[in-house]
């Protein structure tokens, strides 16, 4: 297993632990306003300082991990489910169904990646849920294309022919023979997609379309910090570092998994 996979996985696991145990790790309520402690620098009581409303930045960063990770995983899981379903149906059945589904994929891919989420949140209103829906609506197409191309290869292989000969139903062939073999490349893709999703969610929250105040989220924390870049730089440094760390972790994981799983790139490339 490449080191990159291990490093990426360890960081992600740490972030997940932090996200899950945020209430235990931080004694301070991330929503608790205290104007008397407004914009206080780093201290023992507030290791990452306080924001404009006197809220503890550390608590908000840790709770922000919860929001960002949950949203990112939600998008990836929805995309996996939809992408696998559509990719399998299109690839396995072929013909008109394939044609229709792939044209739908082409249409979805024709939209610039950020315009559709912005338009969707414009219609549905800004919220984290709507951002998850919007990103899932635009991201599933990559999964669907990837699964379809795998299925097109897999369905002509001997083990599928054998399953057919043994009288397995189509749904069973897809479920038990096609999907398990088609998901390997998806794991790599999902890791990269998770990092893109973290960035997209942060970006959309930064412009006010994602998580709504007072919910702590890294993107909206960065947005709130804009006015204080000169006077209180810690307000954007910590959420910024968390975004960078998370994206780096997913990229390391994706890179490592790609090297590990793709025989053409030479497995066991230990960096």
């Amino acid at each position, binding site marked *: 297993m490449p080191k990159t996979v291990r490093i990426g996985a360890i960081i992600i696991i740490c972030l997940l632990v932090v996200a899950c145990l945020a209430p235990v790790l931080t004694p301070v309520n991330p*929503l*608790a*306003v205290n*104007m008397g402690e*407004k914009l206080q620098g780093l201290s023992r009581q507030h290791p990452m300082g306080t924001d*404009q*409303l006197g809220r503890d930045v550390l608590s908000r960063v840790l709770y922000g991990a919860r929001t960002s990770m949950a949203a990112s995983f939600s998008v990836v899981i929805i995309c996996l489910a939809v992408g696998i379903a559509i990719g399998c149906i299109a690839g396995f059945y072929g013909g008109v169904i394939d044609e229709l589904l792939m044209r739908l994929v082409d249409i979805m891919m024709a939209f610039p990646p950020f315009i559709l989420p912005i338009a969707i949140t*414009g219609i549905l*209103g*800004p919220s984290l849920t709507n951002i998850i829906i919007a990103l899932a609506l635009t991201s599933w197409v990559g999964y669907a294309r990837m699964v379809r191309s795998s299925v097109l290869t897999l369905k002509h292989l001997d083990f599928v022919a054998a399953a057919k000969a043994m009288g397995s139903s189509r749904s069973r062939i897809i479920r038990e023979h096609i999907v398990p073999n088609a998901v390997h490349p998806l794991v790599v893709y999902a890791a990269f997609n998770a990092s893109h999703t973290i960035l997209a969610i942060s970006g959309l929250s930064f412009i*006010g379309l994602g998580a*709504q*105040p*007072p919910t702590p989220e890294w993107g909206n924390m960065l*947005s*709130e910090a*804009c*006015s*204080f870049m*000169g*006077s209180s730089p810690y307000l954007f440094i910590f959420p910024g570092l968390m975004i960078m760390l998370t994206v780096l972790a997913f990229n390391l994981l994706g890179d490592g998994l790609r090297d590990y799983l793709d025989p053409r790139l030479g497995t066991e490339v230990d960096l």
Partner: protein
Amino acid sequence: MKRALTITSILLISILFICISVACKKEVSSSTQSAPQELTIAYGNDTDANSKNGVGDMLLKIFNSDRLVELVGDEVKPSLAESWDLKDNGQTIVFHLRKDVKFSDGTPFTADAVKFTYDRLKKFKLNQWTQIDRIASIEVNGPNTITFHIKPGQEGFIVLTAFAEYQSSIMSPNSTDPKGDPGAPLANLTGTGPWKVADYKKNQYTEFVPNPYYYGKKPTLDKVTVKYIPQAQARVLAIQSGSVDAVVDYYHGGSSYTPRNMLKTLQDQGFQVLKKELPMTVVLACNYKKAPWNNVEVRQGLNYAVNKDDVAALFDGWLTPAKTRMFSDLAPFIVESGEQEYPFNLDQAAKMFKEAGLTGDTKINLMAQGQNPDEVKLCELIKSQLAKTGLNVQLDVLESGLYSDRQKNGDWDLRVYYIGGPERRKYTRIAGRFDPDSAEFGPAGYFTSPELIPSLRKAVGSFNQEEREENFKVFYNKAKDLAGGVPLYYDAVFVVAKQNVKNIEYVSTEPRFDNVFIANK
């Protein structure tokens, strides 16, 4: 002889040398004196100098135009009109215009220009709420006399004050293309003010130079360039980088301002920060037409629940918390009592909410406009303060369209709003926020009650100053008791400028640059 010639030559050469030196020195000093004095301002709105169906932004109107009258304190003073007669209890106003005034293109200012201006306002439904809806007809009686007939029931002092409105600034009929057509697009907005527009590029900049025909004291600067920079942060960066000399808040107040939390930083960096409080108060408005906000005790409880010192702290103390009265000093006949109207008292608030049946399960939403980060922060603060009284308020940060829809549909409980306005608008705006019969109230009302109306109408309508004063006092007291919403802080117009920009003055609530000079430049 030879010696005498030599001495004479030396003397002549010396005199010549001295003359040349003096001349050169004079030339140098005169060129130094005549070095153009230019000022560049960053402003968050486009001046709209060449608009298709507008009359220009407030800053533009103050720079290049005048009004028939000016509202100074609580009196209407002559401006382009040197006097006026009120007839039929104010239903007819005859203005006698100055004869010595010219527009910046050299053409004389006449009653036809006044008529042209009001025809344009009527054509494009501008200034409609505050003035146009109140005017029945306009009659030009001669080159320097014009009569306004006011609709029955609409007459009063408030109508006279509306002639001092920004949009009531008089423009030359030559401003449009084709000239003289009030419905045509503005091609070159020509006024009688101290400045004239020399160049304008939409959404980029407006260049002003002194109006050579101005009847008053000529501006000291040679040119003022107003750069349109919509993003607040970009305006701050512009002055920090030295690409502008000053940053000016929107003249109206309330938006397009220098972020309050940047003012201290800018001051520490050596910029001058000038402030003028407006007779405008930012309030927490409640939907008083529906339960539970139709209960005066709930509204009073809301007043007790909000810690206004914390609200002011949000803006680094640059804005004054509205603790002792509804409006700041510039509001008509406002009196500082020194006593807090509703002192911060969480227990009292919680008790009043409980008595009114409000619990943590009561659904209450607080609307905030997403494009205004200060408003969002303020709402977050209010939400947290109300949580301490046991109320569970849901904060809805909305984009402007959705916000407006919900406001129109009455689908809201609480929102941040403002009452009052810039000084020249203070009478019309108070009526517009509180009087349901004013045209403005429908889309922009704040609170009303039958108990407020008699005193309010006399306060803004009477031509007798004493009667106005007496009724304003009654109105303020009743408004306090009825607690239509929560006055939070008095808004202000700020100017941030380099130290070498001298003599920026506020006339009423508007920053003026007429006497500005640049030192050591």
